């Protein structure tokens, strides 16, 4: 027997790895692509965050000090687009790339070359989008929701570039979703049934179907904009017989499932981390899966709750109010399940757990303000004020972003082979919690007091709350530099992690070495469902 026969026994004939830039441009390895996604997302998080700080600096006190209104509008627009499409979504795709194959015992993603392509579309899309800031007339300035006709008849010339970049990002998402679905449905280790899958895998499977369903609608709506702007159609132009409200229906038919695309994988991460550090099996696994699916299905019939002030008929308002309130039920089930998992556990508070617990509390606050927003007559007072800004930032930043950070701390030992620095991690956590709540909690009050969103200057009675939000914003922004420091240190070294990095962790990802070698599970591993696992008896 030669060494050659050893590698064929592994199922692979390895070519020598490429070096330098080519290695990253041409890689088809799910772990490398996962890292690329995560790094890209981190870069975008800081670019979008810098824009948020420009906004917060301008709003530090009443009056126009630092920027002019046109640039302020570009900042709010770009901040939203970059955070949604460039930071949060790619971060979840990065985590899926790394962890889904490891959690289901697959050697790689089902479509590795497609995986490479869908990643590399993103830097292209976002360089294009960012370049529009430097074009004549400035970048997109119509809000991340780009309502027509402000984004068509009244838009700057760079809007065509914005449309193209949304198309590219959309194609990337669709291809990524197809890949994840194909991987999960076809490449599980044979013993793993659907109802044995870890919840991170389940939530991603459902998220991927949502992506497949709604990204084409987004592509459709931006194409209609393109036609209105350049080819004289009047989809959204009232003067030509078009309908500006149609834009909002189409946009939110995409947009509402989109917000669940940004939260369902976060639910998955929390459902992995809570049992690990409570050392107890997840309470209500089945109901977690059903709740996720219910939320996904309901997300298609609630879109008009973003449009309660456009003048829909009474019957439509009532339907969308009831449907929206209904979402609170499966969402509540999830929160109750996490709490019940904690109940009678054996709980320890490592950094991933801290971020997850903060996620649960803060996401719930965002969920409760969501219930308030669902009540149409009350929504007339909240709509398009800072109350809404507070609500969606609570579910997205102290919610989804905290879950992503929790996932990063949780899986870093598997990626790098070293534990992230516990002390630094705790500093990062506490500064983030204080900063994020100081930023977004006062926004509830500025909204109730009557401050509309997307304004560069405001009346004097909103000054105190804005001052607090701005201070909090800078604290939160600066503390994220600690995250970079923690990650860089962890990549370079630290306390070595064993295969199973956390005492209470369960799942296939903890059976491969830490750091996970480039190629894992060349042959399908043995699999014991969690319910039969000795660790959770």
């Amino acid at each position, binding site marked *: 027997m030669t060494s050659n026969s050893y590698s064929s026994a592994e199922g692979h004939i390895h070519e020598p790895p490429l070096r330098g830039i080519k290695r990253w441009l041409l890689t088809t390895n799910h772990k490398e692509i996962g890292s690329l996604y995560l790094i890209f997302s981190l870069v975008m998080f800081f670019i979008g965050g810098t824009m948020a700080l420009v906004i917060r600096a301008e709003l530090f006190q009443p009056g126009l000090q630092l920027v002019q209104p046109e640039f302020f509008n570009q900042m709010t627009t770009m901040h939203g687009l970059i955070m949604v499409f460039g930071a949060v979504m790619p971060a979840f795709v990065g985590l899926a790339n790394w962890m889904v194959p490891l959690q289901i015992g697959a050697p790689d993603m089902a479509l590795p070359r497609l995986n490479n392509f869908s990643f590399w579309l993103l830097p292209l899309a976002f360089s294009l989008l960012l370049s529009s800031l430097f074009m004549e007339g400035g970048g997109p300035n119509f809000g991340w929701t780009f309502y027509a006709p402000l984004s068509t008849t009244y838009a700057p010339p760079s809007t065509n570039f914005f449309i193209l970049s949304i198309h590219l990002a959309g194609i990337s998402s669709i291809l990524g979703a197809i890949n994840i679905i194909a991987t999960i449905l076809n490449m599980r280790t044979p013993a793993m049934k659907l109802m044995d899958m870890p919840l991170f895998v389940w939530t991603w499977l459902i998220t991927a179907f949502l992506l497949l369903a709604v990204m084409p609608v987004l592509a459709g709506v931006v194409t209609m904009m393109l036609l209105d702007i350049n080819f004289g159609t009047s989809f959204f132009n009232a*003067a030509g017989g078009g309908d500006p409200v149609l834009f909002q229906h189409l946009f939110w038919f995409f947009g509402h499932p989109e917000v669940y695309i940004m939260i369902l994988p976060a639910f998955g991460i929390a459902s992995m981390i809570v049992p690990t550090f409570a050392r107890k099996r997840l309470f209500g696994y089945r109901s977690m899966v059903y709740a996720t699916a219910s939320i996904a299905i309901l997300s298609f019939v609630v879109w008009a709750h973003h449009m309660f002030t456009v003048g829909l008929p009474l019957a439509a308002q009532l339907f969308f109010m009831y449907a929206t309130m209904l979402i609170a039920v499966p969402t509540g089930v999830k929160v109750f399940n996490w*709490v019940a998992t904690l109940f009678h556990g*054996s709980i320890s508070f490592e950094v991933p757990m801290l971020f997850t617990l903060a996620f649960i509390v803060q996401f719930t606050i965002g969920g409760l303000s969501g219930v308030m927003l669902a009540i149409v007559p*009350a929504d007339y007072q909240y709509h398009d004020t800072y109350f809404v800004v507070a609500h969606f930032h609570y579910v997205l930043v102290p919610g989804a972003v905290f879950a992503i950070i929790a996932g990063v701390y949780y899986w870093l030992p598997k990626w790098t082979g070293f534990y992230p620095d516990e002390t630094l991690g705790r500093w990062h956590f506490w500064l983030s919690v204080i900063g994020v709540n100081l930023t977004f909690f006062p926004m509830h009050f500025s909204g109730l007091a009557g401050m509309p969103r997307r304004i560069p*200057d405001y009346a004097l*009675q909103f000054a105190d709350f804005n001052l607090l939000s701005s201070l909090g914003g800078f604290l939160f922004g600066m503390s994220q530099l600690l995250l970079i420091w923690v990650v860089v240190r962890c990549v370079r070294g630290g306390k070595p992690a064993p295969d199973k990095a956390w005492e209470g962790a369960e799942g296939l990802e903890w059976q491969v070495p830490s750091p996970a070698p480039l190629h894992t599970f060349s042959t399908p591993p043995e699999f014991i469902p969690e319910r039969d696992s000795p660790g959770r008896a």
Partner: protein
Amino acid sequence: MTGVWLNRIWHAVLWIPVVFFSHPLLAKNLYGDSNLNLPVGVTHMSREVYSLHMIIFWICVVIAVVVFGVMFWSLIRYRKSKGAKAAHFHENTLVEILWTAIPLVILVVMAIPATATLQKIYDTSEAEMDVMITGYQWRWHYEYLGQDVSFFSNLATPPEQIDGREQKGENYLLEVDQPLVLPVDTKVRLLLTSNDVIHSWWVPQLAVKKDAIPGFVNENWTRIDEPGIYRGQCTELCGRLHGFMPVTVKAVSKEDYQIWLAEQKQQAVEKAAGNEREWTLPDLMAQGETVYNTYCAACHMVNGQGIPPAFPALAGSPLTTKAEGRATHIELVLYGKAGTAMAAFGSTLSAADLAAVITYERNAFGNNTGDVVQPAEIKQQLKPTE
């Protein structure tokens, strides 16, 4: 029978938060002047909306206290560091059914009063008067239907306050040159539309917020109980000066409203007379400066330098300084420029105002052409479209 019974319970439930939160002593001690909550408002509907808001708020607080209570208690009680051993249960059908059913019941309890209030908000019938509200970038236009009274309502905060050269006034960014005047104790139907992009008309004290959308006419209504000045803002991003288009409503007694209405009609007659007479250059310049600063300075700037390339300079431009540019200059002001932010003012401003502002633009900022444009010339230009 059950209806009456439910109604009584409902009012009892409704009453507690209303009393609690609107008690002046409490309100003052808790909040001072810092506006921590929605305003109760000055209409029946705004008070109903406020009660609804407080009820949902307290339900949410109770839910949060219970859920977080159990959560934090578990976190403290079942610490590994205190030797907690994990239990093995992982499901409980009864508990799971309960925590699905109880939220459902709570939601139904919330939905019933919300539905009732919403139905009232949608009932715009039997209005005693109609006001047409049209959104423009970046001002509101009010038309009292059937009264021949209409006017624009513009931000009145001086630019010096905005850029910090002057002390900011009490109603900074919430003050207008001419408020919407409405009589109290009168059901007013509000019809909303837009001339350009989508705007949204909001007055928190009235609990009225409705989008003004081009090509649509939306309806809403209000009936104000107390005379006073109620301030709000545009709440739908509508472009550059979205943050600078306040809504101000002045509610007056029915008698005062009639007096005001008569004055407005008189002023309309005087204004119409201005379109018929010849003006002198100084008069045109004086009037033109006012019009320019209200309608043009937002883009072309007070000094006429504009913000190129989006908003071209008027100072020293061939269009405003050369005789060949005169006709195009007038045409642009009257009909706007397609595909740009330049709006058509031909149907917005009176002939006299148009003549004044064009004259001003041709003589101010060092343009000094000595050109005079008279209202008669503008009327001549506008004729074909009439």
